[in-house]
């Protein structure tokens, strides 16, 4: 099963209060930049990654994060390393 951008966007909305993210007037999509569009700082990102690691039962290494800028990038990493994912690529357009 491939993890989609839509799932990650839904995760973000669910976590927005906990992460202190103001997403009400932001259209969140796969192309959204975690830092520039969503306003994530290093602490938000760390919380988000810990959430994803627990939910998808994966370990996201620092090397994986080197090229992560958008939600699609996160989806790509999760689909690469998740045992639950059927294919190697994410659905960035979802």
């Amino acid at each position, binding site marked *: 099963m491939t993890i989609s951008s839509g799932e990650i966007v839904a995760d973000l909305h669910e976590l927005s*209060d*906990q*992460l*202190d993210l*103001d997403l009400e*007037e*932001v259209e969140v999509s796969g192309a959204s930049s975690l830092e520039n569009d969503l*306003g994530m*700082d*290093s*602490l938000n990102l*760390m*919380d988000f*990654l*810990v959430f994803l*690691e627990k939910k998808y039962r994966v370990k996201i290494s620092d090397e994986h994060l080197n090229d992560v800028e958008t939600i699609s990038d996160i989806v790509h990493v999760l689909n690469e390393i998740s045992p639950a994912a059927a294919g190697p690529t994410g659905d960035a357009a979802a």
Partner: protein
Amino acid sequence: MRGPRGAGPGAEVAGFVDDFRAFVAGTLADAPAPGPETVYDDEHPLWEKFRAAGLANWWLPARHGGPGVPLRVSVDLIAELSYHDPGFAFAAMLPILGSRMLEFYGTAEVADRYLGEMAKGGTFCAALGSEVVAGSELALTATTFRREGDHLVVDGEKAFSTNLAFGRFCLALARNAEDHRDFSVVLVPADTPGFEPGPRWLMSGLHGTGTYPATFTNCVVPAANELSGNGLRVLEVGLNGSRILMAAIAIGIARRARDLSMEYAGNKQLGGRPLTQNAVFAARMGQLEMELESLKSVCWRAADEYDALYAREDAAAAFHGQGVLKSAVMAKMHCGQTGWRIVSAVSEGFGGLGYTEAHPVQRLLRDMRHISLVEGGDDVLRELTYGRYVRHASRRG
């Protein structure tokens, strides 16, 4: 209670404030000034009087046996303590940092036990975040914990913690040894084998405070001593209260500086007239009063915001979501910088006398300086402010 804002304390809080002011006027005002060797621990005679009057740890809520004084009122109380003794004020208020973390994120049983003891005995707790290498980058914290069955094992070294050597327990920020993104705050009782406070740091100011490093070597504590939530954010939440009260220390120091100036000017002749009738002096004091009012305003505003969040049923979650309160950071930065300008200007008014070691204004200068340096130096907080509240348009003030 001073100031126009806030709903005002209830009858119980009003009675507490009266007792607090009686201690300040009847005991603290006449106490000898602390020297470099003084430590206000729980055996110091001044602390014993404070504790005996039921004044210690005044913010602890009624459910843990405390008087539950709101932060808005605490700002005024701290300003009154710090007018006479900023070191005593700092030592007395700093346990709010650890106790609020425990109150919000500890299990009910652990919080009841340790906060109940604090309320009953007027004892101290301490918090440990800073490390020598990590500095202000808490995400680089090297102190670790590992989970072993029903226990946690803590290892590492911490650099600065006030009240540590005589605190009954401490709350240490640590990283999971097996997951570098997993941070927790762990409660370590003072008598835990392997926990060792180091030699006291001698500080430039704030005499009376005792600040120490510490080492943790295979410290085994119950798993229930781990606070819930991301440890970095839990620490941020704890710092909100202590930063606001640290800012409030500037109010008392600035008032003292003003009153020293007026006392000096009343006895000083310049051009055949008292200095109090000099236009330059008058302008300086007018400026000081305006700046002093701004200190009060930022502290009251931050405390009002804090109290409003604290009153919510979901206070712990609401604070955890926000982490740092912008108003608390603004208050500390503003009071540190403006307070320093106030005391610096006052010291100039004494001429060479103001540069002598024994002059009270020198002590005020050294005491005021800590506000811009401790619990996040101003450069650290400027960067935090930019990252969280300036870079993204939707978050700008």
